[in-house]
């Protein structure tokens, strides 16, 4: 029942585009030969990535591998120094309400109530909805993330986990087709993170969003992603691209698969890649501090 097929390959692009198991699997997000430099520092080097519609991709790698930068390129906040990032074949020219981000530090406006925080993103997008409709929809999302009754609270009055629920509601309320998750549970306590991870994945599945999840947590990546991209740092490159076909349970996670030998072996294999990359990128600093 819990069967996984993995592909360990340096150039999985074409394969992935073709093999994508989903019915809605035409290429949605594409990065072609993407380079990004900040000042004289090369952050991303030769990134090629094709994400089919509806796929959940985890980006994992040591600090400084540019995984958050890649997310911002897809968001459109920054532009690549070389190469193209496209959505449905169209180059990304700037941010758009079609792509929503959930931030590690929530990014809620402290002076807006929960309702207004969920609402304000929706007004930037020309959807032709009346303000009453937008409000209704915002309320619906507040209910769906479990914050009913907290509409008029300010973020400061909520716990970290609840604040991130607002962040999730805000992201979904603008009805994106792409969801960019920048370590969404990095600032949430471990128990809440575990619970909310399942809830978030269920929403992603229900809304059929294409999702990119930046994470430091290999178990999180293996738990929820259809595909795990391991990145190396200085400059940021794609090291491994691994498909995970083990089915996810009703809660959006692979609770059962977690206990299989297959999971253990795959995790070990990926951990070796990740570990080597983390140690490699830390070396110069260690040597510097020792001398």
């Amino acid at each position: 029942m819990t069967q996984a097929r993995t592909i360990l390959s340096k150039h999985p692009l074409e394969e992935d585009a073709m093999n994508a198991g989903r019915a809605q699997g035409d290429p949605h997000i594409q990065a072609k030969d993407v380079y990004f430099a900040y000042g004289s520092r090369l952050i991303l080097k030769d990134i090629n990535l094709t994400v089919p519609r509806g796929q959940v991709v985890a980006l994992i790698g040591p600090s400084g591998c540019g995984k958050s930068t890649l997310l911002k390129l897809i968001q459109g906040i920054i532009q690549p120094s070389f190469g193209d990032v496209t959505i449905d074949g169209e180059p990304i020219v700037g941010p758009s309400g079609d792509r929503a981000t959930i931030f590690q530090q929530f990014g809620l406006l402290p002076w807006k109530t929960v309702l207004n925080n969920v609402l304000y993103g929706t007004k930037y997008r020309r959807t032709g909805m009346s303000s009453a409709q937008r409000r209704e929809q915002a309320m619906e999302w507040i209910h769906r993330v479990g914050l009913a009754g907290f509409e008029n609270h300010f973020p400061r009055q909520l716990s970290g986990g609840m604040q991130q629920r607002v962040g999730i509601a805000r992201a979904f309320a603008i009805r994106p087709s792409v969801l960019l998750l920048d370590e969404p549970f990095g600032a949430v306590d471990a128990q809440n993170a575990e619970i909310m991870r399942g809830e978030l994945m269920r929403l992603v599945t229900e809304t059929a969003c294409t999702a990119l999840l930046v994470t430091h947590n290999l178990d999180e990546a293996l738990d929820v992603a259809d595909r795990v991209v391991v990145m190396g740092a200085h400059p940021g490159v794609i090291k491994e691209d691994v498909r995970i076909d083990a089915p996810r349970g009703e809660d959006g996670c692979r609770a059962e698969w977690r206990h299989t030998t297959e999971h253990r072996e795959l995790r070990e294999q990926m951990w070796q890649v990740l570990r080597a990359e983390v140690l490699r990128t830390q070396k110069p600093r260690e040597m510097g501090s020792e001398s």
Partner: protein
Amino acid sequence: MSTMGTSAIVQGKARTHLTPEQIEAAVKERAGHIRARDKRARWLYPVVLGVVVAVVWEAYGRFVGFNPIIFSSPSQIWEGFVFYAQHELWSDFLISGREYVLGISIGIGAGIPLGFIIGSSRKLSYTLDPFIDALNATPILALTPLFVIWFGLGIESKVAICAILTFFPILIAGIHGVTTVDPLLIEAARSMGAKRQRALFVDVVAPSTLPFIVAGLRQAIQTGTTAVVLGEFIGGLGGVGYRIFAFSSGFQTARYLAGVFVLVTVAVVLNYLLRYAEHRLSPWKQTGEG
């Protein structure tokens, strides 16, 4: 249940007779007492200090006595106040008040928009920052005599000095506020498709600058009173500062001190009003209970 009883329970002496519910109620009651006492202490202690100081001060004046030219007792100051109130207080108050309100309005009215404009433009802030810093560091009060020469003895000179002195703290607060907006909030708004400056300004920049503006206002309110009073010292035809200066020149120390107390009262009231406004303008600052 008496306080004594509850403290005995909390210390465990009477535990055997009590159900857990009773203990819980007693503990809560005791915590409530401590809270109430703390709340009372907040206003009671300063009132006690004020009364003690006033009594000692008055007693010293009665039994030892001050040289009336050097200092006065509270009761003499009160008499001075009554005298002042029966004569020029109201007209002085109107003159100073008009100077203050006009001056501070000009200072704020120019400072806030210019702060936003300069803070939002890298070119402008690079160009102007050194000059703004230099002017702000200058004791502009030293220019008061010049302002009196330029604008005369009427209220115009005081309005001008008050305006320029309140302008800088507000301007600097505005620039500082705009340039220190949390980049994450900007990114969040932009990532949801906030296209241009206007949406970002209304939703993100203006509200996050508000605390800085309020801090600037606090400073401006203080500096503004100083400016008006000092301006009237140097050259004026009326006003509370003018009167204080006149009383002190005539060695009418009790009346002079009464004038100072009027200023103290005004400052306290303004500060209270500002705090109230701050409270109303930024409800998200309160953590809220229950």
